[in-house]
């Protein structure tokens, strides 16, 4: 009986916390479906009635959110594609080869995790300005092409693959890059997927760097578009702002809900290894 009760108490506590966490997003959805005048109520009206889908159409009329979405997709996939190459190559030699300076070089990779773009954005901005790359999609990707974090994760994964396998492969004439491509990468797939998801999520959410290197709507990403939209609509039209916010958050959230197990495993797993 006591056990039953404590079980129930656990459920109630977690459910309450989960509810409190979800409330802000429900409120966001609710507000985005209201008419402008309906938000000014003394008590919160949770169910929008009548439902107004017009806010979403209006958001699209006022700012090119479709274009922002495409730009975001280009930037995050571009970063990921290059990272996959740089990270696997580097992780491979750190895991498998002995060479002079390996420790120091690995340290150089690790330090990158702790010197984020938030610390170096000013000199990097000046570098891109002198390369004449400002206001391009490439500018938003360049600083993230190397990833100390990804290299670290993948090195751990490669290390767990038995050495005998490589010896055998080399004897069969499958060394170096071919071994990496045909053996190591397939075996380390869970780690690659995990790193890929984390990279996608974190760059989808980037704000400071794209804010600095872009100044026209045609290259801007969703997050920057939302920030600009807020300034542009400073009249505090909450229904419109919330509809824009839903549009910016929805793509990733929908994917997350569909593949929630994979996402949660990935984020758990990388924390553990990190």
């Amino acid at each position, binding site marked *: 009986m006591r056990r039953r009760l404590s079980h129930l108490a656990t459920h109630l506590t977690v459910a309450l916390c989960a509810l409190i966490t979800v409330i802000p997003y429900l409120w966001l959805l609710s507000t985005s479906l209201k008419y402008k005048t309906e938000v000014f109520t003394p008590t919160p009206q949770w169910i929008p009635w009548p439902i107004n889908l017009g806010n979403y159409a209006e958001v699209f009329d006022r700012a090119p959110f479709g274009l922002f979405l495409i730009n975001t997709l280009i930037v995050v996939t571009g970063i990921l594609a290059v990272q996959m190459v740089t990270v696997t190559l580097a992780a491979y030699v750190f895991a498998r080869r002995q060479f002079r300076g390996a420790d120091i070089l690995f340290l150089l990779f690790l330090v990158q995790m702790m*010197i984020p773009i938030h610390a170096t954005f000013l000199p990097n901005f000046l570098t891109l300005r002198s390369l004449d790359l400002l206001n391009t999609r490439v500018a938003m990707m360049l600083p993230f092409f190397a990833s100390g974090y990804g290299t670290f994760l993948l090195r751990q994964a490669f290390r767990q693959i038995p050495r005998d396998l490589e010896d055998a492969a080399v004897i069969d004439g499958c060394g170096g890059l071919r071994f990496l491509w045909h053996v190591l990468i397939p075996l380390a797939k869970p780690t690659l997927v995990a790193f890929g998801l984390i990279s996608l999520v974190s760059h989808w959410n980037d704000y400071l760097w794209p804010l600095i290197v872009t100044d026209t709507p045609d290259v801007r990403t969703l997050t920057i578009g939302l920030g600009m939209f807020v300034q542009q609509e400073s009249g505090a039209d909450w229904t419109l702002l919330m509809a824009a916010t839903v549009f910016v958050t929805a793509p990733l959230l929908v994917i997350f809900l569909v593949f929630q197990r994979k996402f949660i495993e990935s984020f758990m797993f990388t924390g553990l290894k990190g």
Partner: protein
Amino acid sequence: MADSTAVVTPARLPAWAVALAATGRFRFRGGGAYLYLLPSLVFLAIFTYYPMGFSAYLSLFRWNVLTPDPVFVGVANYLSLWREPLLWLVLRNNLFYALGSIPTTMALALFLAVLVNQKLGAARSVYRVALFYPTMIPMVAAAMLWVWIFNPGIGLFNYYTGFLGMPRLEWLYDRHWALPAIIIMSIWKNFGYFMLIYLAALQGIPAELYEAASLEGAGAWARFRRITFPLLAPTSLFVFVVAIISSFQVFDQVFVMTQGGPADQTNVLVFYIYQHAFRFWDIGMGAALTTVFICLLLVLIAVVFRSVGRRVYYEAD
């Protein structure tokens, strides 16, 4: 004709080029390792290491709207920073943000991880999704949403805390409550990720330990205090380090919610650098601040690698 020149050319190469080619080939065979690292190293060099030196160099110049051509001024920028009361306010705000958000986030993450790790059946995955989803939301969007929630007149926050007997506050417009509001929002955004990290670590603790403790008559609290908490120490250190480093990076929330205001009460280091560089166009001062920031981070890294890093590794092995 073209063919024959192509064949002859290598022999005509100057001696240094032949030597270079030879060493290159030697490296290829012996330690082609460097070649594999090259793509990463190029980007690390340009976008992580060069900026450190570059900003240190620029910080020695006066370079702003009034002085469009850089003038060497030595450490003058640092001296004026030192005398600038706003810098100290900014650093205090960063400290306040770290103190306000990190312990609460960690406690909440640990508490919920322990609860979610119980046998909760099918509901468990629903709980995990509900508690973790804020991680998936861009900080800018989350900040926007919370500006609405913190609205003094018709915001949800004032409405529901009113039930708990709390006074109505102006939140983002109040110089004492703006930073706490940002902290509340950041806790909501971040605790789910740390909860997952704790959950992963909890699953690594053998169940026999708990069974044995239960047989000895240890209650839930004793089991937590004697088994869970000590065995999670390496994870807690990891979470703590990650949380500290990311607390220095706080920017998006401030940019959207307060723009550093009111009266600079929410101005933080990254926003302060941003202001100098992109609002006042004072590159020299911005570079000096960047250098200060990087030095702060380097000191932090040294501490992490020396003490915490080692301990985490030893305990984890």
